[in-house]
């Protein structure tokens, strides 16, 4: 029995792919911006005593990364890297991962702020449209899903023959999509805004609640790491759970239900 359902509306599909491009640009232009001050402090003003991460080049040809006071040699990867102009130099993140490839804070900011608008508008459009169409309700993790989280994980680990019954998304998908879509993404936007002196003057509690400007920079970076983590796991899951079906559904909207897939929340 072929059970094909229309799962993703046009706004969701568009938002998904535009968001992917914006995400990649925001990471690479963000690392460009980070390179201008390659350290993160858990404080309001800059404070070496509260330094959580710093990427340095203590001497010619050597790159180091210090995390919570522990220093690692990271030559070639972090600290002493590709300068984006065909050779190596003192640079935190390498040129092959930044926009532009060479060090240029002004242009990195240009890209970052343009795509920050794109990503924010995109996220908002998705949120409103999926809330109106009821897709959000299928996706949100509910209290009743929590007892099903471990059984679902056990099924993935082949410790259980059958997954717990679920609707459109299984409990682990719901947990991932809810945390990324409704918690991490807005937090990354808000911590980014909190870095701006103009925003701090309008909405001081925003910067304050994250612990100040440098702390907001640390949270913004941590949020990026979580988004990258989601990106990797998400790509892995898509690749291993019916790649063609998954890709087709995010292009055309039509998804063929799997053996355990249901519909609804």
């Amino acid at each position, binding site marked *: 029995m072929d059970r094909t359902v229309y799962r993703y509306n046009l706004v969701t599909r568009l938002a998904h792919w535009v968001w*992917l491009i914006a995400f*990649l*640009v925001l*990471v*690479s*232009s963000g690392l460009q*911006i*980070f390179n*201008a*001050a390659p350290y993160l402090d858990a404080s*309001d*003003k*800059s*404070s070496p005593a509260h330094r959580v991460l710093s990427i340095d080049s203590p001497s010619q040809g050597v790159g180091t990364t210090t995390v919570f006071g522990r220093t690692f040699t990271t030559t070639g990867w972090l600290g002493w890297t590709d300068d*984006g102009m065909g050779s190596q130099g003192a640079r935190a993140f390498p*040129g*092959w*991962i*930044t*926009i*532009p*490839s*060479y060090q*240029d*804070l*002004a*242009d990195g*900011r*240009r*890209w970052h*702020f*343009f795509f*920050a*608008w794109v990503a924010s508008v995109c996220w908002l459009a998705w949120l409103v449209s999926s809330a109106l169409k009821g897709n959000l309700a299928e996706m949100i993790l509910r209290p009743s899903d929590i007892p099903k989280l471990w059984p679902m994980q056990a099924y993935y680990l082949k410790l259980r023959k059958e997954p717990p019954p679920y609707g459109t998304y299984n409990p682990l998908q719901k947990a991932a999509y809810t945390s990324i879509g409704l918690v991490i993404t807005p937090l990354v936007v808000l911590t980014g805004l909190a*870095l*701006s*002196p*103009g*925003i*701090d*003057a*309008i*909405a*001081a509690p925003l*910067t*304050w609640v994250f612990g*100040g*400007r*440098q702390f907001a*920079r640390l949270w913004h970076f941590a949020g990026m790491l979580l988004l990258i983590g989601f*990106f*990797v796991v998400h*790509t*892995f899951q898509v*690749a*291993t759970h019916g*790649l063609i079906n998954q890709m087709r559904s995010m292009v055309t909207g039509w998804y063929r239900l799997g053996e355990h897939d249901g519909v609804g929340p």
Partner: protein
Amino acid sequence: MNRKLFLASSISSALAACSPIGTALNNNAGFHHFLGSAQGLSEAVIGTHGLAREYPESAISSVYRIDSLPTPTSTRYMDLLAGDFRGYRLIVDGAVDRKSAYTLAQLRAMPQQTQITRHDCVEGWSVIGKWSGVRLGDIVAAAQPRADARYVVFHCFDRDDQGTQYYESLDMHQAMHPQTLLGLRLNGADVDADHGAPVRLRVPTQLGYKSAKWISRIEVVGNFANIEGGHGGYWEDQGYEWYAGI
């Protein structure tokens, strides 16, 4: 196996394609200009409103970090410095009805404002310091700007290694902001040469490059298209946004 291949190739190609495509687009003048359109949006939405946070004395950074063009070494500046700025005059001119030239003593005799605010550098770091001085708004108001006045341009003593002079600009609204200050004192002492003596602008609602050091002249203008590179500031001429609230 195919799936692992798909995974590895899609993630690595997404990452690896981003920088070269982005760099190529960045070098396209039209696209570069298009990206800049977001600046107007940010300025329209955020603008310059509200007040920068003010801190207690205990929050002051032990070192007020310096990250600017080098301290001026011109004969003119060195002579002023050697004479304790007795020969200094802050010129206020341009599209105003009352041009003036303030001595440092005159500036010190005006009503002073003290603020302990955070200086946020465009690079990402922040430093907190106590600034005292004259509100820029008082100086601008005293000059009686003419109806066509839209911007206040700050001409400075410092030059880069190419000889290009530092300058900055604010619009009238930003200039009249109650915390926009002509700083004369930093952390309880007269501003020293490295921190912008004798007069350094403080704009706590915007990024640090707006807070021009070593100010020699304040010019009120209708537009800044004919000043230096035409973008309203030294860093703006090198691609940084004129609106520095974000």
